[in-house]
C-alpha cells in the first residue's frame, strides 16, 4: 500500500481510497499540480463550476442526496474565501464536506503573496476542523483524517489547505487502513447510554399526549435511522412532526404525520408541540425558528432529547432525559426495549389524537385559489401531483418558495429534500440540484426557486449545460423578495424597502442564452401541460412560473409569540398582519 508519490498524487490517491467518485471545483494557480493529476486519470470525475460557492453547494447537494461526503477542490485566496458561505452552510446543517484548498508555497505564507489569505484562520469558525499541511509527511494522514472527521459523529465540513510546494514534494503515501485506526483526541459517541434509553422508553410508555419531534439528525444518521423511526411510530402510534431539515424521514403520507413544525409549520404540529406531555426530540436542536417564544415553548412536557452532539443538549431548552448517541443506534435500542417490555401506548393517546384531528380540521394550509392568477401554493400542488411516485430530488433556494415547498410537497423518503435550513443561503438551490443530479443522473432533480434567489447563483446553468446535467428550476416569480416583503409588512409598516426587483431578466431568454430550455406560464390552466413539458425535456430547464405577486406565507408564528398563537391564513387580514408582532417581538425577528 505504501509508495512514493507527489503531494498532488496523494490527494488523488486519497480520493480513490476514500471512494470519491466526483469532485466539484475550480482551478487556479495554487492548485494547478492537483489539476494536472486530475486530467491524467479517469477514476474521479471533476465537475467544473462557475463560482466556488457553486462548487460548495453542489457538493452539499451531492452529500445530502447520497449520505456520502461532498468533495470540493478550489484554489487559494479568492477561491477559498468564495467557499466560506458554503462551508458555513454545511456547518449549520451538519453536512459532510471535504474541501481541498490550494495555498501559496510555504516559504511565502505570511508574506501577503498573490492570492494568499489565511485560509485556516478564515475557515476555523465555519468548519468542524481544518488543517494547513506544512510537511509532505503529514499529508496522507491528514487527508484520511479529514474524511473521517467530516463523516463521523455529527457530520460537518472540513478544509485541508495544501501549499503548492507540498503538492510538488515527494513523500510516502499510506492508505487509510494503516495510517488511521483511531483518532487520538476525537472519538464521537455512537451508542447511547442504556440507562437513559430505558428511562426514555419508560417515560414514553406513560405518555398521554406524546409527540415525536424529528430533525436532520435522523437523515444524517442514514437510511436505517428513518426506517427505525417508522418502526417506532408504527409500534407506539405517536404523532410525528419534523423540522425543515428532517422532512422525508417519516413519510408525509404516513398516518401519524403532522406536517412540519415551527415558524411556518402546520397548526396541528405546533399545537401538538405546545400541548404535549412527552416530547421526544430525535436529532433536532431546538432552533429558534422551531421554538418560537422560548419561555412559552411546550410548557407542560417532559422532554427526551436524542443527539450525537453533547453540546446540543440543554443548549436552548432544558431536557429531562438526554440520550447522547447516534440516532439509528439509539432508535434501535428504543424499538427493542419497547418491544421486549411489550409496552402499549396509554388509552389516553386516543383522545390526544382526536384533539389533533380537530386541529387538522382547521386546514391551516388553505388558500384562496384563482382562475386568473397562479397562486404559488397551487403551482406547487400541481408540481407535486406531476412528480408523485417519480424518482425525484427537490432542492430549494431560501424564502417564501422554500416554505411553500416544505408545506405542499410531501416527502416520502429521506435524502430527497435538499434545502439550506440553518444558514438560509439564497443561491443554494441551483448548485445543490446540480450536485444531486451528478450523484443521480437518471433521477429528476428540481430546484424550487424564487426570482431573487435564483439570480444569486444563476451562472451554474452553464455548469449544468457543460456537463450534460438536466436539473429543472421551477421559479415562483413574483418580482419580490417575498419573505423580505412579508417581514416588512409585518414589522415595518408595509414600507417595502428595496424588496421589489425591477429589471428582472427574461428567464426564458436567459435559459436559451445558456443553451437550455425556458418555459413561461402565467395562467393556472396552462400549468399542468407546462410542468409535463418541463419534466419531459431532456436538458436543464428554467421554468418561469409567474405567480400572484403579493401572496404571503402562512400559517406563521410571529416572532415573540408561542406556538399556540399562530397567525392562520384566513385570519391574516391586513390589520392582523400589521399588529401581529408586538413591540418587544420586533427586536427578536
Amino acid at each position, binding site marked *: 500500500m505504501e509508495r512514493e508519490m507527489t503531494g498532488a498524487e496523494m490527494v488523488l490517491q486519497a480520493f480513490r481510497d476514500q471512494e470519491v467518485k466526483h469532485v466539484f471545483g475550480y482551478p487556479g494557480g495554487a492548485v494547478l499540480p492537483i489539476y494536472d493529476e486530475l486530467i491524467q486519470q479517469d477514476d474521479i470525475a471533476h465537475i467544473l463550476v462557475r463560482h466556488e460557492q457553486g462548487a460548495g453547494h453542489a457538493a452539499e447537494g451531492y452529500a445530502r442526496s447520497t449520505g456520502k461526503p461532498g468533495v470540493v477542490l478550489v484554489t487559494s485566496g479568492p477561491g477559498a474565501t468564495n467557499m466560506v458561505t458554503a462551508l458555513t452552510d454545511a456547518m449549520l446543517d451538519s453536512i459532510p464536506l471535504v474541501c481541498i484548498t490550494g495555498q501559496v508555497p510555504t516559504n511565502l505564507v505570511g508574506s501577503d503573496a498573490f492570492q494568499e489569505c489565511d485560509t485556516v484562520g478564515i475557515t476555523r469558525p465555519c468548519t468542524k476542523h481544518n488543517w*494547513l499541511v506544512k510537511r509532505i509527511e503529514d499529508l496522507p494522514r491528514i487527508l484520511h483524517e479529514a474524511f473521517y472527521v467530516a463523516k463521523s459523529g455529527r457530520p460537518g465540513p472540513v478544509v485541508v489547505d495544501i501549499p503548492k510546494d507540498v503538492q510538488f514534494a515527494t513523500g510516502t503515501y499510506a492508505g487509510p487502513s494503516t495510517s488511521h485506526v483511531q483518532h487520538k483526541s476525537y472519538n464521537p459517541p455512537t451508542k447511547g447510554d442504556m440507562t437513559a434509553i430505558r428511562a426514555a422508553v419508560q417515560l414514553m410508555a406513560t405518555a398521554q399526549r406524546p409527540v415525536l419531534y424529528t430533525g436532520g439528525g435522523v437523515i444524517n444518521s442514514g437510511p436505517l435511522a428513518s426506517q427505525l423511526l417508522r418502526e417506532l411510530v408504527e409500534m407506539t402510534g405517536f404523532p410525528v412532526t419534523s423540522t425543515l431539515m428532517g422532512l422525508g424521514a417519516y413519510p408525509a403520507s404516513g398516518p401519524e404525520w403532522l406536517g412540519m413544525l415551527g415558524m411556518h409549520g402546520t397548526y396541528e404540529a405546533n399545537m401538538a408541540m405546545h400541548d404535549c406531555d412527552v416530547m421526544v426530540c430525535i436529532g433536532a436542536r431546538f432552533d429558534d425558528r422551531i421554538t418560537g417564544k422560548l419561555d412559552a415553548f411546550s410548557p407542560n412536557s417532559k422532554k427526551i432529547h436524542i443527539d450525537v452532539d453533547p453540546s446540543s443538549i440543554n443548549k436552548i431548552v432544558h431536557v429531562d432525559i438526554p440520550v447522547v448517541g447516534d440516532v439509528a443506534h439509539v432508535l434501535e435500542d428504543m424499538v427493542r426495549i419497547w418491544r421486549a417490555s411489550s409496552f402499549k401506548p396509554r388509552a389516553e393517546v386516543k383522545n390526544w389524537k382526536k384533539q389533533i384531528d380537530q386541529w387538522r380540521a382547521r386546514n391551516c394550509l388553505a388558500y384562496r385559489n384563482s382562475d386568473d392568477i397562479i397562486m404559488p401554493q397551487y403551482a406547487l400542488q400541481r408540481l407535486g401531483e406531476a412528480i408523485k411516485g417519480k424518482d425525484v430530488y427537490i432542492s430549494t433556494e431560501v424564502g417564501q418558495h422554500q416554505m411553500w415547498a416544505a408545506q405542499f410537497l410531501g416527502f416520502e423518503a429521506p435524502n430527497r429534500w435538499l434545502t439550506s435550513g440553518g444558514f438560509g443561503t439564497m443561491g443554494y438551490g441551483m448548485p445543490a440540484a446540480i450536485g444531486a443530479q451528478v450523484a443521480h443522473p437518471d433521477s429528476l432533480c428540481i430546484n424550487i426557486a424564487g426570482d431573487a434567489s435564483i439570480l444569486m447563483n444563476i451562472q451554474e446553468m452553464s455548469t449544468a449545460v457543460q456537463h450534460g446535467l438536466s436539473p429543472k428550476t421551477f421559479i415562483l416569480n413574483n418580482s419580490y423578495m417575498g419573505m423580505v416583503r412579508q417581514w416588512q409588512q409585518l414589522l415595518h409598516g408595509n414600507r417595502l424597502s428595496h424588496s421589489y426587483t425591477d429589471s428582472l431578466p427574461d428567464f426564458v431568454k436567459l435559459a436559451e442564452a445558456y443553451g437550455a430550455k425556458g418555459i413561461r406560464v402565467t395562467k393556472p390552466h396552462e400549468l399542468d401541460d407546462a410542468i409535463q413539458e418541463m419534466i419531459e425535456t431532456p436538458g436543464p430547464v428554467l421554468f418561469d412560473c409567474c405567480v400572484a405577486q403579493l401572496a404571503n406565507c402562512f400559517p406563521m408564528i410571529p416572532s415573540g409569540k408561542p406556538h399556540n398563537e399562530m397567525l392562520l391564513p384566513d385570519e391574516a387580514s391586513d390589520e392582523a398582519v400589521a399588529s401581529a408582532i408586538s413591540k418587544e417581538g420586533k427586536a427578536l425577528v
Partner: protein
Amino acid sequence: MKPWHQQSVKKGRPSCEGWGYKMNAQNLDALSAYFIAEVSDVQETHTLSVIVDNEPGVLARVIGLFSGRGYNIDSLSVSETEHERHLSRITIVTTGTPQIIEQIRHQLDRLVPVHRVRDLTVAALRFKQDKPLERELALVKVAGAGEKRLEALRLSEAFKATVIDATTEHFVFEITGRSNKIEQFIDIMRPLGLVEVSRTGVAALNRGPEGLSSNAQ
C-alpha cells in the same frame, strides 16, 4: 443528587450519569426545570482545565470559540505540559450562568484537538472542597526613593514577595499566590511608585492524588 449543571461527562463516552434525572419516570416531576433562563441568572466563576494537542492554531480555536459564542475569559494560561505526547494544558477562568458554563465545556470538548475538558470548580465541589488549587505569578516593578521605597520593601516581605531585580531607584518583585492576593499587592504598590506589572494568569489543579492528563485518552 447534584443539579444537572454541576456534573461532568467524559469525552467520547455517552453517559446519562449525573444529568440530574432519575430512572423512574414517576420521579421526573421535581426535575422538570423547563426554561433555563428562568433559573440561571446567577453568574458563577469556574476554572476549566483543557488538555489539547500542542499543534498550530489550537489556542486560536479555543479563543475563537469564546469570542465567537460570546463567552467570557477572565484568565487564560497555556503551556505544553507533556512534551513526549505534545500535550498542552490550557487553564481558563470564565464567568457565566451554570448553563453557559456547561455549554462552554461541551463546545470545548467538540474541538477536534481537545483531549479532555474538566471543570475544576465542579470537581472540587465533588471532592467536598470549596475550590481548586489556584496560583498566579506576577512580576511587579516599583520605582521611587526614600520612605516609599522602604515601605514597598517592607510590604513585599509581608506578602512573601521576593526581589528579583533592583537598583537604587527601583525593585522588581516576584509574587506568587491566589489572584486576589496579587490584586491586593498591586493595589498597595500603586501609591508607592508602581511602574508596570506582568501576570501569568491562573494555573490550577484539583487537590488529591488523582490527575487529569495522566488518564487522558
